Structure formats: C-alpha cells, structure tokens
C-alpha cells in the first residue's frame, strides 16, 4: 500500500535492490501466514466455504483431464509395449506413472490455472475496490479472513483432488485396457498398485501439499498487491497462474530429488 517515498538511493543497483525488496515482501507475506494461522480467532466458516470453492468446484475439470490423461497415456504406451509382447505390464506402468507423477502434476497445473487465477482475481478486485481497506478500518483483520482461509483450504484440498485424480486417471486407463484386453476392474487395480509403495503415496501427498500451498499463497500475494485499478486485477490473476506454475515445476524437481534419497 505504502509507496516508497525515500530519496532514490540504491544499495547495489536499481534492479537488484528491487528484486531483494520483492523477495523480502513475498517472504514476510508467507511468514505472516504461519503466524496468523496459529493465533485465534479462526475464520472457520470462511475456511469451509473456501474448501468447497476450491475442492468441489474443481472436480469436473479434474475428472475430465485426469480421465483423458489416463486413457491417452495408456493408448500411446501400448504400441511400444506390444512390440515386446509386454502389454500385460500396462496396468503396472500406468499405476506408477499416474500415482508417482501424473496425478500430482496434472492436479497442480489444472488448479494453478483454475484456483490460482480465481483467488488472484478475487483478492485483487477486493483490493482495488477498497474492500480490503474497508475490512481494515472496521477493525477486522483481512489477512486472517481472506488469506489464511484460502491458503489453508488450497493446501488441504489439492492433495484430496490429487488422490481423486489418480483414481479417475486409472479408470481412464482401465477403459482403454478393457477395450483391448480381457481384464476385470479388480485385476486391473491389483496390477496397477502392485509396484506402488507407501513411500510413493506419501511422496505424492507431500508434493501436493506443497503445490496447494504454493497455489494459494501466490494467488493471494498477487491479489493482495494489486495496483492500477481493474487493469491490475487481470494482471494479478495472470501473474498468479504463471508464477505458481513456474514454482510448481521447480518444487517438483527439488522434492522428487529429496524424496528419492529415502528410497
């Protein structure tokens, strides 16, 4: 809110200084989340509402994309596997691909688009229409009401959506398998989970928690720092999607490495 009104003195250089100021702003915003999360009062009603918005309202999109991902992935893997006469490996291959990699990533990217942009736009428009200032002056903590609820809901809902996406993806795969081979649903799922360990599932859940947190906090941060009127709202929504997708890929690389040390 407060524009820097000090004389122009840069510690290193204009760009470098700006970068560190941004990093500082973003990290204090994130640290504040944890502080406000543990202090009462808690906005339980708004939190539940946000779980509904983020979780339930993304269901149809997640269903469609993960079903198609499972189906297409299976269809495209078949020719090369059948060259070796190894089509019976398909369920197990799809199981590994889906649970370890595709479900977390597909869910995170779809939600970065859907949830991230809607949080960014909503908070952003509340900012430019002074609704956030109105909360402040009526002695309500807008950070608690708007940010903590959304970030927590997104952190908890993305893992749930991820598990659902994994299941639906396997169903898509099963559709393709049953079109080509004789198999039952139970046999398919049995094979799909044969090579899956507890660590695989835990790893996917942990990564999804991280992605959910990223989507929520980036969307809120971009929205909360919107300026320049309605034009800024579009920018905030857009920046929220781009930044959270970028961070999700970086986190994916790092987290997969870290979790592999435990194998």
């Amino acid at each position, binding site marked *: *809110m*407060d*524009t*820097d*009104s000090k004389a122009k003195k840069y510690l290193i250089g204009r760009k470098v200084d700006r970068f560190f100021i941004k990093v500082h702003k973003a990290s204090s915003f994130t640290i504040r989340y944890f502080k406000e999360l543990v202090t009462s*009062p808690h906005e339980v009603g708004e939190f539940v509402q946000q779980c509904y918005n983020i979780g339930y309202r993304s269901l149809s999109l997640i269903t469609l994309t993960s079903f198609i991902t499972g189906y297409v992935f299976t269809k495209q893997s078949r020719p090369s596997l059948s060259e070796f006469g190894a089509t019976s490996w398909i369920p197990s291959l799809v199981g590994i691909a889906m649970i370890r990699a595709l479900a977390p990533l597909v869910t995170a990217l779809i939600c970065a688009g859907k949830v991230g942009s809607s949080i960014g736009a909503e908070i952003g428009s*509340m900012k430019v*229409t*002074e*609704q956030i*200032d*109105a*909360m*402040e*002056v*009526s*002695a*309500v*903590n807008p950070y608690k009401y708007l940010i903590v609820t959304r970030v927590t809901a997104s952190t908890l809902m993305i893992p749930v959506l991820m598990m659902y996406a994994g299941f639906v993806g396997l169903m898509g795969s099963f559709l393709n398998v049953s079109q080509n081979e004789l198999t039952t649903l139970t046999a398919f799922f049995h094979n799909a989970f044969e090579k899956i360990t507890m660590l695989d599932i835990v790893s996917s859940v942990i990564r999804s928690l991280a992605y959910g947190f990223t989507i929520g906090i980036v969307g809120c941060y971009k929205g909360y720092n919107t300026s320049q009127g309605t034009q800024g709202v579009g920018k905030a929504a857009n920046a929220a999607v781009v930044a959270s997708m970028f961070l999700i890929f970086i986190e994916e690389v790092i987290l997969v490495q870290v979790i592999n040390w435990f194998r």
Partner: protein
Amino acid sequence: MAEQKINNLSRVIEVKDLYKSFNENHVLRGVELELSKGENLVVLGRSGTGKSVLIKILSGLLKQDRGTAIVLGQEVSQLNELSLRALRQKIGFSFQNSALYDSMTVKQNLEFPLIRNVRHLSRKEINSRIEGVLDAVGLLQSLNQLPAELSGGQRKRIGIARTLILQPEIMLYDEPTAGLDPITSIEINNLINEVRARFHTSSIIITHDLTCAKTTGDRIAMLLDGQFVKTGTFDEVFATKDPRIQSFYDYNFIN
C-alpha cells in the same frame, strides 16, 4: 444543525505539520487540523489534493512521512496492531466508492464487522442492531439484497450503516454525495446530520459539493496545494478574496 453549540471543547482529532508524498508527488505539505467533540468539519478541495490521503492517515491505512496525527489522544502511526484495531473500532470510515463486500448480502455486510468486534452477542441482539442502523439510513427493505442490486445512493447509505454498526465516536465521510443526483445528495446530507444527532459522533466530511458543505458543516476547511489555506464557517471561508477559493465557489454554482 449547524448552529448547534459545541459545549465540550475537547479535541478528538489533532493534526500537526503533516507531510505525505508518493515518490515525487508531494500531496500533503504541512497540514494542520483540529476536530472538536461533536463537531462536523467539512474538508473542501479539488480532486487530487489529498483529501482521501488525509483521512486514510487518520485511520492508519497510510503512514505520514512527517508530522503528527493524533486521534482520540493517540498518535495513529505509533500504534501497534492491537491498539490500532481498538482505535479503529471507534472510527467509522465511509469510503468514496462505498466499498461494500460484493459477495455478501446487505445483512452480511453489516454483520461482518459486528460479530468480529463485539463478541458474545446473541442472534437477537445482532439482528436488532442491524435493523437499528438500517432504519437510521432508511433502507430496512434492502436487508437481503446484494450490493450489485443497489443504486449508488443506496450503496452509500449501506456503507454508512456498516460504519455505524460499531457505534463509532468519529465518522470520516469520503465524498458522501459524489455522483448522486441533487435530491439524493440532500437526503445523504440530512442523514449525516441525523447520524450526529442520534449517535453523537464527531465527523470529518470530505466533499467538493458546496450544498453538502453548507448543510452539514459547522466549520469548513479549504485544502489547497497540500495545506489548509482557510478555515471557518461557510460564509467566512467564501468571503475571502483568494481567487482560488472564489473560483471554487463560482464553479460550483454555475453547474
């Protein structure tokens, strides 16, 4: 209303030598201001002179660069989060564009600050307080409407009702009549006077509407180039020969 005697001379707001700039834009340059208990002070000034900035500093939304802004005995910029929140419960801020929460109905808009600031209210007490302020602004029938379904004037009233619900001691009105037709403006002016009579508030009313200034203000302060150049009753202020003040007056009544 304007001739109402101010018996209690205690200052609720005291601003001294206040400066505020945004980069190269020096908005406030040595503002001095006092508001007595029970007084309606009108701040006049052209667009962009920093009227909104001034009351945002008074409510702690912005921080001044220099000078003091004392509200109810406390320097606003020095307060920690908790004391600032306590102070804000005593200040009602009616925004220039109403700033109603779009996603909530009128009732939820009014309830929002109430249930978060006054704990342990029963459902009945909440409802009676909501009805009380809605009645004061004359919009009881809009209880379950969304802000998008209201007219600009109705939104202004709901905005005022929402600030009244915490029973503030000080009201800050940011252009309460801007963008409204003359009749609705007069209704809002009367509402401002009614609010004072009913809730015993002291108010700062920002406007560039001279009818509003004349009907609501005990005292008028003219903000020009970042300072108050003239303070006094309506007639005193416009009796001066300062061409900048005169042109303000002429312009208003040509329209």
